[in-house]
């Protein structure tokens, strides 16, 4: 049976974090109720089309999925189980904000079948959490983590964020070491990226590209920002420290920002299977506003307007937008820029099997150029980013897109 993954978007937040550009909505009780009714209806109506599929992973994200009453997540889980066929040992993850946590909720989630928890910690320095606009402090995180273990969660991810305004190398290492001491199964450690349309963007401007760093620091000075972003040198040190500390403490990096605890029997055991589906271009369905789907090389997204989503009661025919059948070229591009995010890289033989043409014929020149620049390396059947290439992954990945003119010639 063909596998499928499911993503459920729960957009509600108590308060939007200052760096966040994901789709979220205020947490009115009445709105939540109407949203969940539409969501349940979308799940039921969509499932009809996918009777022949077997669910291998589920991810419930947000927003803050742990904010609404736990009964809603339980109903969503029931709807999924009633309407989809599940594989054996599916991975079912859910995001948890420590500011919304109770032991009771966690117990209910566990009972509902959720077997992997992703806790948004970000930092263990209260001042940094305040600057990020988070709704919890370090103590709140510890309570949440302990309760999660007590509720029976044996697969936990902790989200961390480096290069946060006001952060120092010492404070970052302090957070990292305290987290490593807990020995969670998985750690996501992202460098803060300033996204357009967020309050941070207004304050700090675009630092997503290294070459703008100098200008951005000047801009901070000019705006009289009291709390400054770590400078480039510090940011790079934090990043190098992260990799080193993780490896020394029994973790391996399997994707640019994701680390899994090594397991003696099965090294890959704690890698997030759901995320791998995205990088490996497996099929997935997204439910809820703004959720994205990929099915048989067709991509689409649900509408982003919550009022519209509710008034259409999640009718799949009405809420799906931006439907795009991926051309062969677009598939090749995705194969490269998604696959290269994985530490192991892309498989040369898989490219040829999938597209019926050797990778060298399509991307030979580019791969050679990047090999010369020591950004890519080949190891056996794999092509992967080098350490330097990982730092500059955007630069490399953008080159695997075709010119629009090329595509027209096809």
């Amino acid at each position, binding site marked *: 049976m063909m596998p499928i993954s499911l*993503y459920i*978007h729960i957009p509600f937040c108590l308060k939007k974090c200052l760096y966040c550009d*994901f789709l979220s909505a205020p947490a009115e009780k009445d709105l939540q109720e109407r949203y969940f009714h539409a969501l349940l209806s979308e799940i039921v109506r969509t499932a009809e089309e996918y009777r022949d599929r077997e669910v291998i992973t589920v*991810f419930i*994200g947000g927003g803050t999925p742990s904010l609404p009453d736990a009964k809603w997540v339980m109903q969503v889980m029931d709807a999924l189980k009633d309407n989809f066929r599940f594989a054996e040992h599916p991975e079912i993850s859910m995001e948890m904000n420590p500011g919304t946590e109770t032991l009771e909720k966690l117990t209910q989630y566990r009972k509902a079948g959720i077997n992997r928890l992703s806790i948004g910690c970000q930092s263990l320095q209260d001042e940094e959490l305040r600057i990020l606009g988070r709704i919890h402090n370090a103590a709140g995180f510890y309570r949440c983590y302990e309760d999660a273990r007590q509720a029976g969660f044996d697969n936990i991810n902790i989200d961390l964020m480096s290069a946060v305004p006001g952060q120092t190398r010492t404070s970052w290492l302090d957070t990292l070491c305290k987290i490593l001491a807990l020995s969670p199964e998985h750690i*996501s450690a*992202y*460098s803060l*990226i300033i*996204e357009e349309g967020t309050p941070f963007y207004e304050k700090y401007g675009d630092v*997503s*590209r*290294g*070459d703008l760093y*100098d*200008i951005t620091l000047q801009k901070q000075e000019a705006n009289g920002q009291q709390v400054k972003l770590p400078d*480039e040198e510090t*940011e*790079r040190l934090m*990043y190098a420290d992260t990799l080193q500390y993780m490896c020394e403490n029994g973790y391996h990096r399997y994707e*640019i*920002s994701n680390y899994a605890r090594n397991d003696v029997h099965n090294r890959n055991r704690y890698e997030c299977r759901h995320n791998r*589906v*995205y990088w490996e271009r497996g099929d*997935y369905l*997204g439910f809820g506003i*703004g*959720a*994205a*789907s*990929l099915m048989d090389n067709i*991509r689409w*997204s649900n509408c982003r307007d919550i009022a519209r989503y509710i008034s259409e009661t999640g009718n799949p025919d009405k809420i799906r937008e*931006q439907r*795009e059948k991926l051309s062969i070229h677009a598939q090749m*591009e*995705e194969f490269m*820029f*998604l696959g290269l*995010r994985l530490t192991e890289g892309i498989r040369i033989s898989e490219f040829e099997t999938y597209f019926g043409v050797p990778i060298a014929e399509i991307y030979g020149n580019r791969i050679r150029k990047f090999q010369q*620049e020591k*950004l890519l390396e080949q190891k056996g059947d794999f092509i992967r980013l080098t350490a330097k290439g*990982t*730092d*500059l*992954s*955007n*630069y490399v*990945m*953008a*080159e695997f*897109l075709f010119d629009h003119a090329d595509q027209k010639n096809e």
Partner: protein
Amino acid sequence: MDMKVSRSLAACDGAILVVDATQGVEAQTLANVYMALDHDLDVFPVINKIDLPSAQPEEAIKEIEDVIGIEAQNAPLISAKMGIGIEDVLEAVVHRIPAPVGDPAAPLKSLIFDSIYDSYRGVIVFIRVRDGVIRRGMSVKFMSTGAVEEVVEVGYFGPGRFIPCDELAAGMVGYFTASIKNIQDSRVGDTVTDAQNPCKEALPGYKKVMPMVYCGLYPADTARYPELRDALEKLQLNDASLFYEPETSQALGFGFRCGFLGLLHLEVVQERLEREYNLDLVTTAPSVVYKVHKTDGTIFQLTNPANLPDPSEIDFMEEPIVSGEIMVTTEYVGQIMQLCQERRGKYLSTDYIEKTRAVLKYELPLNEIIYDFFDALKSRSRGFASFDYELKGYEQSELVKLDIMINRENVDALSFIVHKDGAYERGRKMCEKLKDEIPRHLFEIPIQAAIGGKVIARETVKAMRKDVLAKCYGGDISRKRKLLEKQKEGKKKMRQIGNVEIPQAAFLNVLKLDDTK
């Protein structure tokens, strides 16, 4: 823009002086009035923008009388935007502008004051008929070229459109078409007459204007060189002051050295090429025309700094000097004088035209005002200063060529001529600017400014160390793809020089050096 004004004035019997009620008399107001008076035109003022809260029509009237010295008490108070007072203007035209003179019975004599190119009808020639009549079907002759064409259509101008009619007679302004494909045949300033019954002599036409500012224009995509050539040819049709000739640059390939009346003219042409002809351009540093006196006694007109002969062959050089008038409110006189000082200006005089305003007269080297002088003037006077200038002549000057090297390669398109006293400062600022303009590469890029091989300033673009996509969330791949596409698109707007990719806009941006903003 002087050129357009002057050309139009030659086709008129009178002129309406439009004064902004919020600004009063400006330097260019004066310049335009003098030009109209030079053409013996009757001028009457109107006060525009009276609908604005900041309008001070009484002040404007007083200024016109005090500063320009023409009667303005009865000036119509109007708002062109709101349609206020327009009838008064039309009445005033009837009463205050003399009726055109000319003999409809005499042989056709008409002046071409502008023209545009239409891909279906060919050249549309704008004329003022002095004597005689032009009508459909008749054969007309362009007196300077001798070309004879048959008139297909005549007409006059309506708001935003052409209105065909049977004939245009002495005193009228309008247009004609004659399936003219060769745009060289219809020169602005030429006289059009009846091919069968020509007038005895041509109208004086226009003084040929010499371009004052030159720069290189190159297609961003080298394959589009022929398109750029065609576009320039068409633009020249209604812009006789635009000059161009082919040139090549090591850095930029094939392009054109173009001559303009000033920096504003350059920007207008560049804008039109990009917008109307959909061309992506790389513009090199604007340069004035220097006179290079060589040791062998010959004089060489230098329009491209890259062509400067070896210093050993140069006896001395001369640069163009302009006399400029800056009108400014008295509180900013200090700042403006400082600016002129920095730009090697020679102070001539200050005239206070009323309590709050002064006219500063300076002689300035043209090469000091072509880059960003207007911007600097505006920013240092909060927009209150206005500036007008005319070429005075050439003066000997200590000039040197500043070369810019990027990653140790000399970029000819960035070379420019500068006075030796300002060379160090200029070089330093250029390097600083380029450092901001050039994105980081995988390797470190030194940027150096040099005079005759001696490096006088250096900056470094650090190597790129981090360029990573954010969290890829909820499988929203399309959004990540867009980010990558944007990045790739950005690269296309780059010009590869050696190993280094330089944004096209950098070639002009590095010249905007005033940093007091």
